[in-house]
């Protein structure tokens, strides 16, 4: 064994920038774990989620915040839920495994994505330039989530506040994605 150690590096180096009416930041400590519902194990899965998080598993396109407010569960597909929570370290999957006790198949998705939060009164206006889906609060209220494509890049968008959106896109194209979002902001501010 050598004395070599590995240090984690955020995809965008911990990017954080303020614009007029918009703030954009990378969330390097946002852990994402996908949970698949075993076929035939739906009831056990629902009970385990309820027990672990104090809320029901959300339907696709919706999300719910755990009772302790620390984990957001996002419905991605009929048999797929993302658990999104702040966590430092590469063992996010174990955290969820421990909470669910085998009621779902988990996969660590933290490093698959780059996470950006865009918030502020002009956030929606900026997103109009790249987001094809309707983010009007009536159509996309707080807690709603959707998969879409922004500037050719697959993106998950989640409204986590009145003027705040969480954007997840592929880790490998993080720099292109940031450029797309930044350009949208600069074009409207």
């Amino acid at each position: 064994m050598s004395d070599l150690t590995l240090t984690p590096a955020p995809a965008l180096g911990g990017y954080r920038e303020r614009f007029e009416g918009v703030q954009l930041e990378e969330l390097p400590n946002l852990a994402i774990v996908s949970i698949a519902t075993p076929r035939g194990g739906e009831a056990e899965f629902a009970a385990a989620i309820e027990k672990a998080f104090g809320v029901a598993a959300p339907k696709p396109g919706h999300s719910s915040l755990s009772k302790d407010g620390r984990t957001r569960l996002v419905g991605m597909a009929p048999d797929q839920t993302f658990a999104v929570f702040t966590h430092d370290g590469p063992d996010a999957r174990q955290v969820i495994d421990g909470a669910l006790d085998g009621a779902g198949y988990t996969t660590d998705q933290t490093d698959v994505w780059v996470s950006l939060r865009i918030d502020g009164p002009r956030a929606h206006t900026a997103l109009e330039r790249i987001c094809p889906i309707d983010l009007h609060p009536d159509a996309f209220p707080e807690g709603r989530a959707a998969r879409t494509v922004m500037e050719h890049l697959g993106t998950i968008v989640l409204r986590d506040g009145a003027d705040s959106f969480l954007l997840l896109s592929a880790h490998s194209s993080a720099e292109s994605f940031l450029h797309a979002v930044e350009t949208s902001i600069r074009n409207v501010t």
Partner: protein
Amino acid sequence: MTDKPINAPTATLREAHGGGSATYVEQPNRLAGGLVDHGRALNFDFDGRVLQGHPGDTLASALLANGVRLVGRSFKYHRPRGIFTAGSEEPNALVELRRGAHQEPNTRATTVELFDGLEAGSQNYRGSLGFDLLAANDLFSSFLSAGFYYKTFMWPQAFWEKVYEPLIRNSAGLGRLSGEPDPDSYDKGFLHCDVLVIGAGPAGLSAALAAGRAGARVILADEDFRPGGRLNAETLEVDGMSGADWAERAVAELAAMDNVRLMTRTTVHGVFDHGIFGALERCTDHLPTSGGKPRQVLWRLYTKRAVLCAGATERPIAFGDNDRPGVMLAGAVRAYANRWAVTPGQRVAVFTNNDDGWRTAADLSARGVEVTAVVDPRNTQPRAEIPGAAIRMGDAVAGTRGRKGLKQIELASGGTIPADCLAVSGGWNPNVHLTCHQRGRPEWREDIAAFVPGKDLPVGLTVAGAANGSLSLAAALLDGETRAREAVESLGFKPAKHTPAKAEDEAVELTPFWHVKKGRARAWVDHQNDVTVKDVKLAHQEGFRAVEHLKRYTTLGMATDQGKTANVLGLAIMAECTGKSIPETGTTIFRPPYSPVPIGAFAGRSRGKDFRPFRLTPSHHWAEEQGAVFVETGAWLRAQWFPRPGETHWRQSVDREVEMTRGSVGICDVTTLGKVDIQGRDAAEFLNKVYINGFAKLAVGKTRYGLMLREDGMAMDDGTTARLGETHYVMTTTTANAGGVFRHLEFCRQCLWPDLDVHLISTTDGWAQYAVAGPNSRNLLRKIVDPEFDISNEAFPFMACAEITVCGGTPARLFRISFSGELAYEIAVPARYGDSMIRALMAAGEEFDVVPYGTEALGVMRIEKGHAAGNELTGQISAQNLGMGRMVSKKKDCIGNKLSERPEMNREDGLRMVGFRPVDRSRSLTAGAHFIPRGAVASMETDEGWMTSVAYSPELGHSIGLGFIKRGSERMGDIVRAVDLVGDSDIEVEIVSPHFVDPEGERLRV
């Protein structure tokens, strides 16, 4: 009226507004009132002459205010042309705007908003605008009639390319491009609404108010910079106030509503499927500079309902020399006077076949402009008393006089009347364009002699106001309100109670009158493309009678204005020729865009390096530091090789990387390979069904190569799948097929075998994965892998896999797999550690002289080892072709199994993948060469196969290749020719095993 030579500059623009002491330039045609700010002067430059206008002016209104009538030359005959309309339908007044790289040709002066410092120039002349050398074309007009291209340049044939084409190209076109890259930026965007209202005239404002008050989400888009449409151009009253005041009040109410988005300077240019509309917003065109913001935004509007309130376009009447500067549409003349406080002439005559045209005479007269005549071909009572004007009922204008601008009109009854402006109205054509973008056909309405929208409208779209043939103001207001109410009610909104806007129902009666037959001079139909009545008649005479033929033969309606003022007139004349009715004659197809959209706007941000996103590997920035040369593989940028000082040719770098890897150890970033996390009780069965070979018995901690077929039996992709746990597998795919394979697997899971408990999720980006290859790979990894994990050959043999930790506890995955044929591993860490990991691996490997290698060395080693890759897996290759026919397990079913049994795919003389080496070892092989028997002529009949991949093998010291050849596996040692007719080479090659290096696979297992 002045007709000063406009090429004589009075002062430069810089002088005029540079010092802030702008000299006042007289505007001879400026009236009082209107919707311009008389208190502020804006300096602008037209053809080097500095002029002044006011905020609220368009370039056209400002030019008219200054008495400039000659603004351009026509397309074909280079006839002098002036401003013809007051809107986006303008065929004549095309100018070049701005200077340098910002120069934009073919801009309609009627839509250009005036700003201080605007620079514009006329276009399409040789010499000067006033004395255009190409005006000689006009003298030869009898040779340049419709279809002259098709007739004139036929002989001699040899002249076409060298003489005729350059000549035509040189004369054709209107404005000039700057020839420089466009320095402006453009953007796109997406908007959503319940109701889109297109056009903010009386119908549109009324519709938007009704929909907005009901609480619906409304977008109101208008191409003008001032909403109101004809309300701003008329003297008619709404609710007891001027139309313009009412419009202003309506706009203020709409602006105060949160649920209404008012978009001015925005043209809805097309209707697409499912209620989607395209719109172009001109964000900074009205400003001196864009200030770094996008100049224009191309919007995609998602709507539930849309109300088209696009108004109507006035049409001219054709008569001799009706294209002379000063001849204008009557509604435009009135608009200039009422909205822009400009009279286009000092002595105005009116020629109209309808009541609306009379309002031009009345309005101008009321503003103190001298109206010299009103000529109306109808044999009825005059519609108004116009003081001082000669009223000629039952007469027509047969010709005009004046060289570069109108001086007199000639009457059909004989005699002339002085006029420097002739306001012409032949009636109004509803703007049906958008209703026809999905192949709807407009219908003819006899009472207004015009086409109105048909019944077959795009889904969700209704039409209101003048666009629907409701030509009076009262009708338009009511129509807009009604259509909007219907739209919001159908969406479940409750229309608010309010008093509808009231206006007088002004007279709009008309008797169709298309062209004046008297007179010998040419009468223009399409001003922009120089199509005359005679051309239409010629088309008829020569058999081009269908409207689509008429259009192509004469170019009627094919210019940048798409014939907005010309088309109906043209087909009315054709109808006259054929003796058919106008509705029988029909219209040409309307297609988007409604008015020109710059290509730059369609491109949006997708320019240069922003054309598409890039995917970067976790070691990318490290590789950049090493001076790597990158290659695009799909969206990925991968290191192709890592040149070292002194290496001048890529082969030197690649050969070294191969030799050092095979000699000791090399590292390659293989993160780009697709990774699919597969979990579930039935995951093994699932893999058994998607791969041709068996996976049911793969033990935990083992990896297996797998080949998957498409349903048609052809090879789709290959890779390895590792079993990490009882119900947990990780599949790798090729880089190129990662997305496609994942989609295929999801299809299998969701549609073919929904009962299986199997779950998929991509983890491609989640893991930084490095191939560590070469005899010292284990020694290197021992310095990285934490000591509690035994990676000795016995504990971790070939094809083993494990979840481990590295560098003191960082989670990792280790696979003992080899693409290079060496003792090799692939090691993966969460992507966030990828950069740190490559540095750690290189540091650990220093004592072994470790080398990073790129995709080229990777390719050389896989060819040396005989592994198929993208060059071989073309989609037309079967497992049998790859020599893997026996891998298709017949003990189980799998995708592609049945169809791979087709006789054609199992021919005894089928293609087999084998290796090739040149008989003369000094020769280089080329991929794409075809295999031909010795002594045979290279032809399709003698073709036996082709070379797919070639490389120089540093290990063997000569060129090697992989390829497909008939019966290949039975022909070891045979000599054939590799013939490359494109590269002009013909080399004798020997058929050999594809496994050039270590055919027994001993190196893998040590």
